[in-house]
């Protein structure tokens, strides 16, 4: 406590001495004050040393100092007083030194804001939430697998309730998922689970139909039969709902347990009941592993009790003597949950081994488990009970005690039989010392005293003798037994009861005194207590409901599976509720992406045609989409079967994200990207002299780097390299003159490239200029109010970045050609091409 009050005080002084000392003392586990004091004096000197080292000119000394400072930080010691000395090195050229300075800055920048040269967190704070959401919305549209994970993390942190931002990105996220990095997958899956629960209707319906064919049937509205079905309002799963389930399933094979759990919870919360079992094998994998069972178990609990799912894996959960107690108990819990009529005899045989375990806590847990099996499966109740009775003669006291407690509970469920067991327990009573067990036997005697009329009073007699030395719970039960016997057999027990009540009256424990007073008023007739007295028998000997033997892991249904909240069974901060299924699904069309897919495909990538023809000398040619700008590559080729495969490195140029969702052609491209070789659609057989044309799209990612392929035949292979002209990486964009100028102003400085060119006067007509520019670049003509100004606008096909071309005609046939775009490399290449075209013409 002293150190706590000292800490801020010393810190204010800011002296080296105090800082180090404070760092020392806030360590609750620092070993002894003597050692701390010793360290303190050396550290004090060291810090002065460190300052000197940091101020020296030698890089190696600085580095050494920073290494030691990182060491101090890692030990939780305060090194803040070195801040000014460290910050000076922020501009160092040595990358290792720089990194260490960064480590230091991150640690102290917040505390030392006035000194911090660059405090990143202040920048962050300056961004308003609305602005943040805007950024997130923009980033959600990104099609890169690298961005998807991070942006969903940000979404969950900043605006998890803005479900509307997800609509348009839902299908894309589903399709990207398998290629996102593992940690991002977890966050995306969890978020999509929440999303799905707000957008789709419940598949947990009796009349639900899940045959995939029915999805087709849904669209196939012409058929009369189907119409009939629709009248009954059969549940039909939303195709997007199915998409989510289908695309998450492969991730059950992930090595990352968090991913596996995320998919499992998605299936639990979203899949039709009969499909949930798909996740079983993967969950068993988690439960088999000693690393994960403890955490995974709680999340699997709900699924364990589902009939049939885990039973085939029962033996995987058999206990080994070397397992830790924690794991043993969990495995026991699993086995108990899996027990049913069919396997109970196997399980009980296994339990017999556990009861003998040297780990007594585990043996006791096994006895409880046997009790639970006995109540859950009525066929084995008697067998279990007999087994437990045998355990009563066990040498270990804790085993006996636990058995007594469990037998007591079991007998309550079947009160009509088993007076033999009760009398057997009475015989053992003298040898049992564990208070809980003694109390349990006493309770049994009292409750069923009429079935053991001779033994019960005798037990009470013994208790009267030992009453004063018993534990409190035993005393309470003795009073209880006395009261019950007094009511049923007062002839024999009246005196004993009075004696015990008298002992209780003067007991040290006030609970016992209190209970004794209450019992006395209740059972002994007197003037005051007449009303209550009449009901004494009905109160004390009422038939009691049997206790329910159940697991401590039950009742976690209110939280999303796999969450921290679910694990702790409390609502943690930042927990997002999973909503109930809506009764009526919200409009599914919100997930439709505006542009119809094939069109978008045309727009988003440079389309070219690959023509394979068979003449004397078979050849292929390829051309870009626009007839005016045809690039041709011709090569000799003999074809029988055509295979197209990428040459290394597989071009990331063919971007999977938007090819994935398209029919035939795109699917083909997708597999083309990720698995090779890819057999082209026209591959069956080509007759000599036949020719085939195939359109394919390549996303060049706004770069003129060539896409490389091999065209393969059975005998031979040919390399194909397709390099687009820079102008082909654009698509026209229409804009007004005002917009053009506005956008142009935003793209100045680094984003502007220009050149002065000389043109012949004949070429300065607007018609010629337009023709020349359009032959080079796929841009659109933007209106211009001035005659000497020509404007063209386009966007890059891949990222959609604006490219603005303007040509200002000056005197004496010179002209200023300007290109404004963020893509500076493209700009310079385009400038070259345009320059050539305009001057030559």
């Amino acid at each position, binding site marked *: 406590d002293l150190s706590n009050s000292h800490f801020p005080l010393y810190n204010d002084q800011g002296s080296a001495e105090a800082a180090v000392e404070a760092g020392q003392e806030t360590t*609750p586990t620092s070993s002894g004050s003597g050692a701390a004091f010793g360290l303190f004096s050396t550290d004090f000197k060291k810090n002065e040393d460190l300052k000197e080292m940091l101020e020296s000119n030698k890089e190696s000394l600085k580095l050494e100092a920073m290494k030691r400072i990182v060491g101090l930080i890692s030990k939780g010691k305060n090194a803040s007083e070195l801040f000014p000395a460290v910050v000076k090195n922020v501009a160092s050229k040595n990358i290792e030194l720089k*990194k260490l300075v960064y480590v230091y800055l991150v640690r102290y920048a917040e505390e030392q804001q006035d000194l911090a040269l660059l405090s990143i967190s202040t920048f962050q704070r300056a961004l308003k939430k609305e602005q943040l959401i805007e950024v997130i919305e923009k980033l959600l549209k990104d099609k890169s697998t690298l961005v998807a994970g*991070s942006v969903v993390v940000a979404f969950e942190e900043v605006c998890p309730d803005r479900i509307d931002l997800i609509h348009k990105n839902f299908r894309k996220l589903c399709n990207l998922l398998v290629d996102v990095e593992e940690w991002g997958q977890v966050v995306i899956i969890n978020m999509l689970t929440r999303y799905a629960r707000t957008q789709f209707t419940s598949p947990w319906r009796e009349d639900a139909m899940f045959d995939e064919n029915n999805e087709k049937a849904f669209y196939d509205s012409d058929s009369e039969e189907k119409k009939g079905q629709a009248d009954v309002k059969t549940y039909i799963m939303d195709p997007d709902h199915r998409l989510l389930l289908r695309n998450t399933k492969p991730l059950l094979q*992930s090595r990352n347990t968090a991913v596996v759990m995320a998919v499992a919870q998605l299936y639990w919360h979203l899949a039709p009941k009969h499909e949930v079992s798909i996740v079983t094998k993967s969950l068993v994998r988690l439960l088999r592993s000693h690393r994960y069972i403890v*955490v995974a178990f709680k999340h699997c609990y709900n699924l364990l009790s589902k009939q049939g799912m885990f039973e085939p894996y029962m033996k995987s959960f058999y206990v080994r*003597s*070397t397992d830790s107690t924690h794991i043993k108990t969990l495995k026991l819990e699993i086995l108990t949950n899996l027990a049913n009529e069919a396997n109970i005899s196997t399980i009980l045989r296994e339990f017999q081994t556990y009861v003998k375990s040297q780990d007594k806590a585990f043996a006791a847990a096994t006895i409880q488990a046997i009790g639970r099996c006995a109540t859950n499966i009525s066929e084995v109740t008697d067998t279990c009970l007999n087994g437990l009775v045998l355990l009563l003669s066990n040498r270990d006291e804790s085993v006996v005690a636990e058995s007594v407690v469990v037998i007591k509970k079991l007998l309550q469920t079947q009160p009509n039989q088993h007076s033999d067991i009760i009398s057997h327990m009475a015989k053992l009573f003298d040898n049992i010392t564990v208070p809980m067990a003694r109390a349990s036997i006493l309770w049994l005697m009292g409750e069923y005293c009429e079935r053991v009329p001779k033994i019960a009073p005798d037990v009470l007699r013994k208790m009267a003798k030992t009453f004063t030395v018993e534990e409190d719970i035993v005393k309470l039960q003795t009073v209880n037994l006395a009261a019950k016997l007094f009511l049923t057999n007062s002839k024999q027990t009246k005196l004993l009861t009075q004696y015990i009540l008298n002992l209780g009256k003067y007991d040290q424990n006030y609970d016992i005194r209190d209970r004794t007073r209450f019992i006395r008023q209740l059972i002994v007739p007197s003037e005051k207590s007449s009303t209550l007295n009449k009901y004494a028998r009905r109160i004390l000997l009422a038939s009691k409901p049997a206790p329910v033997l159940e697991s401590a892991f039950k009742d976690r249904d209110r939280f999303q599976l796999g969450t*921290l909240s679910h694990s702790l069974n409390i609502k943690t901060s930042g927990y997002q509720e999973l909503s109930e299924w809506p009764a009526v699904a919200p409009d599914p069309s919100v997930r439709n992406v505006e542009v119809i897919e094939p069109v978008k495909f045309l727009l988003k990538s440079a389309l070219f045609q690959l023509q394979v023809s068979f003449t004397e000398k078979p050849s292929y040619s390829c051309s870009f989409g626009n007839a005016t700008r045809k690039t041709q590559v011709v090569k000799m080729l003999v074809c029988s079967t055509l295979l197209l495969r990428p040459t290394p490195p597989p071009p990331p140029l063919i971007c999977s994200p938007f090819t994935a969702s398209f029919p035939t052609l795109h699917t083909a491209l997708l597999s083309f990207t990720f698995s090779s070789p890819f057999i082209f659609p026209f591959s069956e057989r080509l007759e000599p002299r036949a020719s085939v044309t195939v359109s394919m799209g390549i996303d060049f990612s706004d770069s003129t780097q060539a896409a490389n392929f091999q065209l393969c035949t059975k005998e031979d292979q040919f390399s194909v390299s397709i390099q687009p002209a820079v102008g082909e990486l654009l698509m026209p964009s229409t804009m007004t003159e005002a917009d053009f100028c506005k956008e142009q102003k935003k793209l100045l400085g680094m984003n502007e490239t220009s050149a002065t060119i000389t043109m012949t006067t004949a070429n300065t007509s607007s018609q010629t200029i337009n023709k020349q520019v359009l032959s080079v670049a796929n841009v659109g003509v933007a209106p211009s109010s001035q005659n000497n100004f020509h404007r063209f606008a386009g966007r890059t096909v891949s990222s959609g970045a604006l490219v603005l071309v303007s040509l200002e005609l000056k005197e004496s046939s010179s002209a200023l050609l300007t290109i404004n775009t963020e893509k500076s490399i493209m700009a310079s290449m385009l400038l070259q091409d345009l320059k050539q075209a305009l001057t030559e013409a």
Partner: protein
Amino acid sequence: MIHSLFLINHTGDIFLEKHWKSVISRSVCDYFFEAKEKAEDPENVPPVLYTPHHYLVSIYRGKLFFLSVIQTEVSPLFVIEFLHRVADIFQDYFGECSEAVIKDNVVIVYALLEEMLDNGFPLATESNVLKEMIRPPTILRSVVNTLTGGSNVGDTLPAGQLSNIPWRRAGVKYTNNEAYFDVIEEIDAIVDKSGTTVFAEIQGVIEACVRLTGMPDLTLSFMNPRLLDDVSFHPCVRFKRWESERVLSFIPPDGNFRLMSYHVSSQNLVAIPVYVKQNISFLETGACGRLDITIGPKQTMGKMVEGLKVTIHMPKMVLSVNLTATQGTHTYDLTAKVLVWDVGKLNPQKLPNLRGSLSMQSGAPKPEDNPSINMDLKIQQLAISGLKVSRLDMHGEKYKPFKGVKYLTKAGKFQVRT
């Protein structure tokens, strides 16, 4: 997500702390120490705890606790998995994951932690990517560094991290191109007193060591993939190819990695390579017990069983042992009460035997149950499940790589009840 990390040794000293957001006082660990005290055995400490303002998620690896502090909702398995990755990376970098080694390399450890989490969210967790930024220490390099003032910090950003295949670094070049695959299987089994198998299953992994130039695209196929009951993959493996064709198609990381883990269930009749004939008895009266263990070959598929080792956790009352072994050496740890018999190779002609007497604490009751026998063993050049790699093909590169597959069977959690 993950706010802070504390590394704590088994005696309860916090020897390293790292914060990714604001600093959290290490007094938060007191809640953990309380739970640790209660659990007695470190293995029994609950991995997820809550305190008034924070949540604590921890793992226990190599006698160290990795304790992370969480402030808002996150999947506990997410944190646990990440902490294990951190421990794996330490293991990978320093050869072991111990307090001494972490303290010796604190600067590298800090640099690693800085890269592995960004603002509390996992960033670079691939050993391949990390090694490009932060080179692991070697004796040679540390000598060179002290002489030249060089550093362990790479001066380029890893190109792989920003590509579609983040697990592989770009521009890999080797003069000798080679790809090795080790199929390693562990038999988990419980055998009862009479020698019947109560339960047995096989946990297998394929560890790969791939040093190939460029961007090789590999396809590994099996003779009998249907044997595999459950599989999990490194992210490089294409799920779809596995689903449709049962082949492993992947662009491998560079260097060592675990390609796949699999499970063969007991339904496929797991072969048990050895049998144990044992007789352990404690006399009702007198402070004495007897032990007699013989090990013999059962289903070894004609291969040599090596590295045979027997471990028995004796009941507390066994004070000392007086045993003779026909082969190998045996030791008895008096404090931990563990008997270890290092047998070595199993010679089918002359079966190894260990016998003798156990002396017990006088007056102590006879133990309820006999201790079980834990077995260790190794069989080279055999995958006990019968799994066989049929071929490895490479696309995308022109050279011919050197390929190799090795098989090894080990005992996993192999226990004989007595």
